[in-house]
């Protein structure tokens, strides 16, 4: 999941925004969102039989 989040956020970050600083921030934000949402969904599904 981490590798997937990293690869996807690299592409999203590279093609979005105008400056390198904004791209870095956006890529990190997307990466964090992938990780947090993935972990939250995992815990929710863990309790569903």
């Amino acid at each position, binding site marked *: 999941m981490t*590798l*997937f989040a990293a690869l996807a956020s690299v*592409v999203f970050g*590279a093609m979005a925004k105008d400056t390198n600083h904004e791209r870095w921030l956006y890529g990190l934000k997307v990466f964090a969102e992938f990780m947090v949402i993935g972990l939250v969904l995992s815990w929710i599904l863990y309790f569903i039989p």
Partner: protein
Amino acid sequence: MQADEVEPAPGSAWFTGAAAWFVPGLGHVLVKKWGRALLMGGAVWICFFVGLAMGGHLFDLSSSDGSWVLLQVPPMIANLGTGALYIVSWLLDHGFADDPAQAARATYEYGNTFLLIAGLLNYLTMLDAFDIAAGRKP
């Protein structure tokens, strides 16, 4: 009120887009965006080979388990996004087998997802290269 007129893209932009689809990263190389070529193309290549290494399945229109062939079309379109990687795998018949032992691997579904995402990411990469070549993006 009239909509803004969109300038038609030059032929070179279409060629760049096609090259970007066929070889992930090549489109950005053609427009001399080396960093993006490395990052975006590299992400697609890594995604594809990690997916294959995990035992992922590439989709085509054949369906050996009797399921409806049209159900194969959406994932096949996603897989096709990897361009030459998909075509070479198809020619070598690598990754297309419906093998129950392969499907039983713990990483099988992860591999499928990586292969699908590789293609979808390359579609994004292709559009980015096209926009740069057409002068719509710096």
